[in-house]
């Protein structure tokens, strides 16, 4: 794949990064090779010596994990993108919920479907699930729904549960909700209800590609910004 950099990126970035990569190539850069997988898998692979030049994680934890092992160039680390957490329902559902402290999410679930469940990324494993848990806890709704979760392997699976009507409501990223015609955004979580949703980026310690730094800079450049925004991301580090 040419001499472009090898990028390890969280799977949820696929659409946006593919677009950015194409633009980068069009602007004369050596096209990057981008590997999408779960942040956890990518981090462990880098630990095991994967020849990645750039790592983009879906949360801070796995970046911290590698930083702790000295496997990234900490000076290059910065938060590239931000995301929002939203509550979604099936596109044809009439549910309406207002997110505010103490809101009765359990009743909303029951109203939509008796005993219905809340689809989320697995709070024990998936970043989106962790954010959802934090937000619901902050808003005082966690206790009401923690027994009524449908923890999925990843955000996309949670989204599918909602789109297929298995779960009446779900908590996913704004970016995922925007691209799925089967769901409708019911409400957006206040930004202060959870830790900022960040996608940190950094060069790997053993990065060899001369193009890595250039690609990293391109992603943070204004040229890439609209491509990310088109997918619903908040661009945090545009210079």
């Amino acid at each position, binding site marked *: 794949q040419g001499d472009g950099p090898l990028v390890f990126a969280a799977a949820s970035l696929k659409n946006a990064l593919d677009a950015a990569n194409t633009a980068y190539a069009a602007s004369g850069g050596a096209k990057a090779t981008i590997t999408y997988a*779960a942040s*956890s898998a990518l*981090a462990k692979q880098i630990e095991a010596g994967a020849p990645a030049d750039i790592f983009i994680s879906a949360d801070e*934890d*796995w970046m*911290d*994990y590698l930083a702790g092992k000295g496997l990234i160039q900490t000076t290059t680390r910065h938060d590239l993108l931000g995301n929002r957490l939203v509550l979604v329902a099936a596109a044809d559902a009439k549910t309406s919920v207002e997110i505010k402290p103490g809101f009765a999410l359990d009743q909303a679930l029951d109203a939509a479907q008796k005993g219905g*469940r809340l*689809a989320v990324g*697995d709070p*024990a*494993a*998936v970043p989106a699930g962790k954010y959802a848990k934090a937000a619901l806890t902050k808003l005082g709704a966690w206790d009401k729904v923690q027994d009524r*979760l*449908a*923890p*999925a*392997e990843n955000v996309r*699976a949670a989204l*599918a*549960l909602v789109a*297929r*009507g*298995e779960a009446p409501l779900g908590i996913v990223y704004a970016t995922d909700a925007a691209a799925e015609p089967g769901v409708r955004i019911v409400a957006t979580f206040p930004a202060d209800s959870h830790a900022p949703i960040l996608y940190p980026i950094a060069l790997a310690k053993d990065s060899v590609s001369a193009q890595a730094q250039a690609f990293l800079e391109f992603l943070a450049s204004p040229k890439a910004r609209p491509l990310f925004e088109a997918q619903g991301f908040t661009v945090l580090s545009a210079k």
Partner: protein
Amino acid sequence: MIDLGLATLGFGPDEVAAIHLSLKVAIWATLAALPPGIAVALALARGRFWGRDLLNGVIHLPLILPPVVTGYGLLLLMGRQGLIGKPLSSLGIVFAFNWTGAALAAGVMGFPLMVRAIRLSIEAVDAKLEQAAGTLGAPPVWVFATVTLPLMLPGVLAGSVLAFAKALGEFGATITFVSNIPGRTQTLSGAIYAYTQSPGGDAGALRLVAVSVALSLAALLLSETLARSVSRRIGGLS
């Protein structure tokens, strides 16, 4: 379900639940897959019908496809709004977010393995023996039950072990179909997966892996013992 006394071994309540659930799911998945598994194996081994190759292809799908895709497929077919799931759920049979769904997913994933093993055994049964039983007045169903089935037992055992092991290991399709609800649909594999996804979860994962391996080994040993006693009989040293 029997209490394995795991709580006293330092396993958390969710872990204990996951272990019990895994056993329940694996046993039911295996048992439930057995009758259709035998029927399909029989059809593939002996039948000469239109659509045989299609059937063969379809049952291999769970093997060919990434488990996540199979999980989506189950969601589409057997989910609350699914083609088959909808009528079934009006009958009160609900797979969604239920251990039965986990068993279904595990059964489907193990199905091609089970069918192959059984089919191989059926093909090794000497049709001349079945003919002999027929001339003695036994109608085909009886011949099947008293001759074919006992003689294909090695394959049935092997297929069951494969399906059981696969049911313990399966998680991609399960988590996609019925999610990973602790105490309800979270099997051992789901719990292990959750551990592997959080930094520092390795020790927990390893502990559960050990349980999973122990369960499978027990099943393996049991099946080997059964198979040996069967073959000793047929082999002659009466």
